[in-house]
């Protein structure tokens, strides 16, 4: 489904990702963990073509999307991404936020788009707030709208970038359980997260990022209980000491 092969990305001489490879099969959920600044967001942005890579390839459904001849808009229309800071459009209602891409990118007529959007909002538990402005919602509700906005066009791959980091602790649960539901429904997803509980219980695979590359990738049972790489061992020890595992 998704194969990242020897990816390299630098910002003005600072190498952030180097020789990074990983893969995600259809209907699987990969959790990306790693220290702050290890490049999780950068990797997701590269997969969504919000960044141009320096080297290496990203293949989506077998097709090299890092080829400069590929139109980024086309790829982005099939890959959904949800950001840490929600990034809802503040001048539009919740419903308009969710119908924007179906109407403008996929050419769905307004009534059909609204019907789909309402169904999606219902799924994230917010159909009754469709007419509200984003700033009238709580953080958790805003994040669920952002997820609905990304999901409504049926992307083949969903990327989540620390979608709970900006939320108050009591709101984290509602968003994580939504992600778990999506996973149960067979959505292919890559989730960058600091929530070790989620990575452990929901993800099929966990990739640990360090020094701009995947230090270790494996099923959560193995990676969390019997890590091979010394960097993973150190990272997990710190997490355990902080009482977050």
């Amino acid at each position, binding site marked *: 489904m998704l194969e990242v092969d020897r990816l390299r990305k630098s910002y003005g001489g600072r190498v952030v990702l180097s020789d990074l490879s990983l893969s995600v099969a259809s209907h699987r959920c990969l959790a990306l963990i790693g220290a702050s600044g290890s490049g999780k967001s950068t990797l997701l942005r590269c997969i969504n073509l919000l960044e141009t890579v320096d080297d290496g390839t990203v293949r989506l459904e077998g097709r090299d999307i890092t080829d400069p001849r590929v139109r980024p*808009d086309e790829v982005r229309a099939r890959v959904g991404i949800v950001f840490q800071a929600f990034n809802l*459009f503040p001048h539009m209602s919740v419903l308009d936020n969710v119908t*924007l891409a179906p109407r403008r990118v996929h050419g769905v007529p307004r009534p059909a788009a609204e019907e789909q959007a309402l169904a999606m909002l219902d799924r994230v538990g917010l159909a009754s707030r469709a007419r509200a402005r984003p700033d009238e919602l709580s953080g958790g509700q805003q994040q669920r709208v952002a997820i609905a906005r990304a999901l409504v066009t049926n992307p083949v791959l969903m990327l989540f970038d620390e979608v709970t980091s900006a939320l108050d602790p009591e709101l984290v649960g509602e968003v994580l359980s939504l992600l778990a539901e999506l996973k149960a429904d067979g959505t292919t997803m890559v989730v960058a997260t600091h929530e070790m509980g989620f990575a452990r219980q929901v993800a099929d695979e966990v990739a640990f990022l360090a020094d701009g590359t995947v230090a270790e990738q494996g099923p959560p049972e193995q990676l969390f209980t019997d890590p091979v790489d010394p960097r993973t061992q150190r990272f997990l020890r710190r997490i355990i000491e902080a009482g977050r595992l």
Partner: protein
Amino acid sequence: MSTRGTAPGDAWVPSPVQQERLAYRRRRSRRSALIAAVSTVVVLGAVAVAVVHTRGWPQFRHAFFDLSYGVQVLPDIAKGLWLNVRIMVVCEVVILVLALLLALARSLRGPAFFPLRALSTVYTDVFRGLPALLVIFLLGFGVPSLRIGWLTSNALVWGSIGLILTYSAYVAEVFRAGIESVHPSQRAAARSLGLTHAQTMRHVVLPQAVRRVVPPLLNDLVSLQKDTALVAVLGTVYYDAVLQAQIDIAESFNYTPYVVAGLLFLVLTIPLTRLTDWVARRQGWAGATGPV
């Protein structure tokens, strides 16, 4: 959000404590209004007394505030003002469109758009730097003197074009500032959904940018309204309010017509400035949250 009424069926009656508070607030605001009124009367009275006792006041009053003469010239000057209003409206529409195009041209990325970007930059640099009066003279006197058949030699048209050229450079910068004030994460979110650059501009960036720059835009509009008088210096066959006043003065050597013209301009611009303040204040607390 603004205050919401009580929900239907909600039989809320303010408690005695709350009623006491409301009564107290009412008393306070009545008292404040009274103090403001008294102090205004006292200050204005003192100023008036000082002015009328200044030496030379009678001559001054005759030359600038001759009431009956003012009433006599009022209709002509008002007719002139109508021309100012028409110039203003036409210019404003063209300025807004042109300025938006200039700002959009500057926001384009990619090598193919380099000439457009450069042209827009040079344009704004040049016309923001030139005095409006100079541009109006140059076009209003210069072009008609060429006597090129297919170009109109109507000085009024050329004067208005001068205003448009100057003002669109300013307004373009206002739009550009608005566009750049929209946080990059908004663009990223729009692009991540598959929207093109143009769609992102149209549906996400511009609506937010325009909302933010309404106060400075209105400010430029007030300024434009006054500067329509500059077109009068071309001495066209059309008489605007200021030129009309000047003609009356040339006959009577009494300056009251200028005062009348000035008052008429204020009648137009003060409501606009109040509107500008009101919009700015409203955005101050409603729109400052910006993108998350």
